[in-house]
């Protein structure tokens, strides 16, 4: 790798606490110092990789492989149970479409809140809100309550906010598949452009999309990195495994 790593994950593991009874959660808080009321369920076991500045990295794996959990850890939403990671720079996550949007508020109002969550000041939001509207390109619907939006329109607004968040790292979880052809083209162009200055980590089940957009693909399987390398190779190996033997 020519340039310095911007995301480093070293032996990251994550165990969720599984409670046999709902009440055990409360017991854990009250008496947790003396006794343990849960079982561990390891979603991630030992994930080590690094992403260099300016890289476009795709993340694949079957459902439940731990992709989303890994992204949540890198974003700092949840903490790893073991291992360590470091992320240098501001992250813009597109983790779930339309989440965090309030159906009663307009696209514009939601975009303002979304940008504030990403850490933009009010002045910065004022400066880029028109650009966000233009990028989302949903016309007058931007001034309508978001409950009237289609899932594609939600995706457009969600992506537009992150596009202007002045982030160093873009983390995308399955966000682009609902947009129409025009918007997908726009996102691809944006991602290609973004990679000139920033770093991208994205999860997708659209293997062709990853194959021609990424520099590298990481295959996550059962909480460990199964294979990492050239997109074409990893995607082919993954596809071979996923296709049931004839």
């Amino acid at each position: 790798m020519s340039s310095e790593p911007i995301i480093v994950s070293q032996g990251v593991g994550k165990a969720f606490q599984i409670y046999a009874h709902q009440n055990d959660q409360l017991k854990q808080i009250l008496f947790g110092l003396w006794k343990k009321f849960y079982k561990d369920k390891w979603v991630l076991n030992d994930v080590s990789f690094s992403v260099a500045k300016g890289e476009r990295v795709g993340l694949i794996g079957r459902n439940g492989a731990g992709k989303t959990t890994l992204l949540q850890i890198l974003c700092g939403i949840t903490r790893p149970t073991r291992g360590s990671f470091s992320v240098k720079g501001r992250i813009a996550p597109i983790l779930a479409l339309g989440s965090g949007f309030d159906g009663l508020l307009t696209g514009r109002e939601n975009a303002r809140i979304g940008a504030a969550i990403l850490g933009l000041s009010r002045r910065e939001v004022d400066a880029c809100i028109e650009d966000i509207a233009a990028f989302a390109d949903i016309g007058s619907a931007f001034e309508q309550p978001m409950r009237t939006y289609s899932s594609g329109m939600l995706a457009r607004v969600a992506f537009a906010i992150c596009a202007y968040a002045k982030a160093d790292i873009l983390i995308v979880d399955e966000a682009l598949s609902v947009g129409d052809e025009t918007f997908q083209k726009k996102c691809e162009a944006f991602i290609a452009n973004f990679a000139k200055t920033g770093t991208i980590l994205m999860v997708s089940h659209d293997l062709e999309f990853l194959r021609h957009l990424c520099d590298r693909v990481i295959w996550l399987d059962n909480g460990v990195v199964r294979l990492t390398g050239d997109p074409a190779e990893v995607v082919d190996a993954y596809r071979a495994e996923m296709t049931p033997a004839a």
Partner: protein
Amino acid sequence: MKFGALERIKSLSPNLLSPDIYEPFQRAWRHRELIRAVARREFISRFRGSALGPLWAVLSPLFMMLTYTVVFSVTAPQLAAGKSITDYAAGIFIGLIVFNLFSELAYRSPMLLHEHVNFVKKSIFPSETIAWTATIRAFTYGGIAFLVFLVFRLVTGGAWHWSLLFTPFLVIPFALMILGVVWFFMALGAFTRDVAHIMASIVPILMFATPVFYSLEQLPPNVATLLRLNLIGDYIEMFRAIALDGRIPNLIGYLIVAIVSYAVFWFGYQFFMRYKSVIVDVI
């Protein structure tokens, strides 16, 4: 697996053991833009779709005042204990403003994280700010109700006292205490929804243990002393003192209440921050 108490205590954040007094405020200041944006969202979505909109924040306390004045002037002159009916109604109204502020947040706080689950789980969101926005909202309505009260008071022949200038010194420790309560029940409510039901049963009982419809002076001294443990009641009495009687509350009593309030604030904050990272996984 070894799971001794000592190991668990050692795993506590160092912050809990050597607290930094300014930390909760620094964090809130760092996220001020976010708090502003989310607070604004609460106001907008509350009044979106209603014709009168924010006017309701003025109208509902006004109707409440009128109702209480009329009802008590008809039904219960003996309760007033020598005061005029408007004074008595005003005392109750102050009690209700303060208690409603507390009860609204007490009912809501166990559900707060569930309300904001998408923020908390799907974006990089400092969840402790939810307590600030909820408290700001409640105090804004409380403040509007208080202003309505002051105007109403003037119209019905009461006077404004200089002691009203003491209001901020009551509001600030009261707000800190409420914040601590919100943090505590917010964290607890994330683990089990029973907390919401418990609050729904406890708060009405607490209302009778709070001098809302009566004044501490009317009680036998030993009962009054016991009820002084209820901080909300102390605040109600102090607000009555500055708004109705025109006197500054007893300073030693005030300081004790303020210090205890700050302790509640501090404990609630530490409790929430201690469980913050676990909460994401359980809601």
